[in-house]
């Protein structure tokens, strides 16, 4: 079975600080994709960043970057220069890109950015 674990239920940092959210996953597949989604109070699930398992280079999107450790099955998200608008639930998710592609989500981390 494929599972995703987020061990930090809640985190809180000051505006402009850097914060890292943790995620581990378990799979026997060799080809898969990993995602971080953001869900603000508006409920809309928004894709933040994606990482293909076959790529060794860590993905980066502006202030968001990941640390992908394939052997350790770890996929953390770093948010630099955090902003008030980053306050949201963050979900780590996993997908196998063959056949029916279902996303497997972690339990989420509630991130609060304080002014």
């Amino acid at each position: 079975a494929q599972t995703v674990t987020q061990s930090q239920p809640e985190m809180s940092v000051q505006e402009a600080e850097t914060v890292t959210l943790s995620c581990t996953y378990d799979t026997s597949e060799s080809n898969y994709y990993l995602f971080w989604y953001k869900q603000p109070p508006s409920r809309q699930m928004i894709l933040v960043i994606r990482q293909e398992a076959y790529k060794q280079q860590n993905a980066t999107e502006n202030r968001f970057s990941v640390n992908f450790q394939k052997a350790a099955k770890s996929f953390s998200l770093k948010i630099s220069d955090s902003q008030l608008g980053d306050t949201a639930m963050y979900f780590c998710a996993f997908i196998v890109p063959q056949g029916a592609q279902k996303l497997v989500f972690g339990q989420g981390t509630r991130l609060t950015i304080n002014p």
Partner: protein
Amino acid sequence: DAGVTQSPTHLIKTRGQQVTLRCSPKSGHDTVSWYQQALGQGPQFIFQYYEEEERQRGNFPDRFSGHQFPNYSSELNVNALLLGDSALYLCASSQKDEQYFGPGTRLTVT
């Protein structure tokens, strides 16, 4: 591009009733997936539709059924509602491996 749309936004039903939720995919997307998100939890996969057929199903009872229409829009039906069915129901559309989510339908069963 309107993105993924869902209706209704909110819904209140009584135990034992039936409900239908609707989803219109993002333009150009042919695959629709449905997820159930209980309060404070991550979304759980219900099923996925492609070419008007259910392609894969998660661990949900037969009370949960769906349909995809020729224009790729989709419906999620839940029969014999239970209190535990109260959740946010998310629809996601995709063409390849990246799923785009709608704003969800909040279902409350009383």
